């Protein structure tokens, strides 16, 4: 049971109707539809930050799952565990990302991904400046525009983590079934 009423298709406000055209748009839209003028600005932004871009799908899901695990966002971890598996991460890698303990890069052979994992933990856990070693490692493996986008993905995920957790958004039944089948529920 979510904290607020999630708007269903028959009550979708006029500015929100486009998001319901292909069926149930999920609880983030269902909640944001309470404030249509916010929805119409937030969704394109969130979609651009987390959707397909110059950063690969697998990399983005590493950021989203890890950030969400650090923030203990049940909805985001569960939802993006499934997406991460589809994006090519193996079960052990996903399990490691979901474990809130510090990662020393185990299970992640690529040094760029290891640098990213350290970056995510530093940025997502805050507060204050990120440490110099994490910054240097990122610079060694990622271009400026990639660092900007990856940091934005962490930040947008943090926003969604707090949003979904505070509003107790429900995980979809299909997602729960898949997690059960993967032994990741």
């Amino acid at each position: 049971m979510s904290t607020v009423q999630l708007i269903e298709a028959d009550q979708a406000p006029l500015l929100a109707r486009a998001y319901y055209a292909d069926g149930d748009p999920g609880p983030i839209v269902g909640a944001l539809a309470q404030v249509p003028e916010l929805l119409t600005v937030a969704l394109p932004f969130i979609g651009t930050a987390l959707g397909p871009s110059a950063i690969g799908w697998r990399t983005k899901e590493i950021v989203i799952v890890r950030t969400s695990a650090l923030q203990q966002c049940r909805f985001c971890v569960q939802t993006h565990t499934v997406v991460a598996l589809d994006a090519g991460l193996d079960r052990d890698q996903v399990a490691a990302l979901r474990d809130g303990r510090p990662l020393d890069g185990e299970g992640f052979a690529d040094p760029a991904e290891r640098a990213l994992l350290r970056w995510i933990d530093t940025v997502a856990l805050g507060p204050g400046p990120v440490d110099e070693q994490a910054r240097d490692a990122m610079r060694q493996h990622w271009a400026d525009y990639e660092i900007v986008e990856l940091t934005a993905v962490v930040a947008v995920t943090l926003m969604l983590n707090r949003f979904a957790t505070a509003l107790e958004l429900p995980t979809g039944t299909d997602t729960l079934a898949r997690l059960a089948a993967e032994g990741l529920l």
Partner: protein
Amino acid sequence: MTAAARPVAEAVAAGTLPGRVWFYSNYHCNIQCTYCLTESGPKVSRRELAREQLVETAREARELGFTDLGVTGGETFLQPWLPEALTEMAASLPVVVLTNGTLFGRRLLARVEPLAELPVALQISLDRPDPDANDEMRAPDNFRKVVTAIPELVRRGIRVRIATTVESMADAELDRLCALHRELGVPDDDHIIRPIIKRGRAADHGLGVLATQPDLPAELTVTADGAFWSPFGPTVRAGVLDTDLLITRTTRPLSVPAEALLRLVEGRPPGEDSTLNIR
């Protein structure tokens, strides 16, 4: 006029956008009509707009290029400040205020008297020419109070319109109703007959006709819960506000919902060009 206001003003001038802005001053009412869209009654949530918001938004409406104002409820005259607010609003634009006409005792009549000099019309509900049939849908003694109040208002020089809300009416009954409103001092041009809309309490009673967005004029409607496509939008069912005709929660500045309404009217809702996979 600001650059942001110009598109709204142009759309109103061109007839693309209706010129009237509606306000729901409140949702509570001293009676409970069987077909009420907003489930209004004495015990409901009041959902009130502040007097200052009505007056200031009226000014904004004029600056944006709107041409008329409407105030509805609930029973609007349950707001103790309404006569003075109408005077202030009429300084911006002409106003029609909807009322059930049952509260016009001597004191209220004296307070509305100054409205006679202003572009303010009172639209009073009167559904049938016979007390029993009228009161069955509205409230006991409603007919008597209304036919007493209307001549008093007319005598004071206040413009009165009569709104008849019915599913259907035989010609003979309509003839008698029209004879009655003429006798009360209300000309034919100020008699409006409109259907019951199947929302709110009307839907619970199986009354009225279904009306969807294309059926309703895009009359910007400001409420305590946000801005809506039409005064038939912010309806209530089982105590819950309908959001299917909600435009924005933001009502101030008025340019926010006005521009969003214009985009909808022009058929280009923002966001329709974005593809998202967020769940």
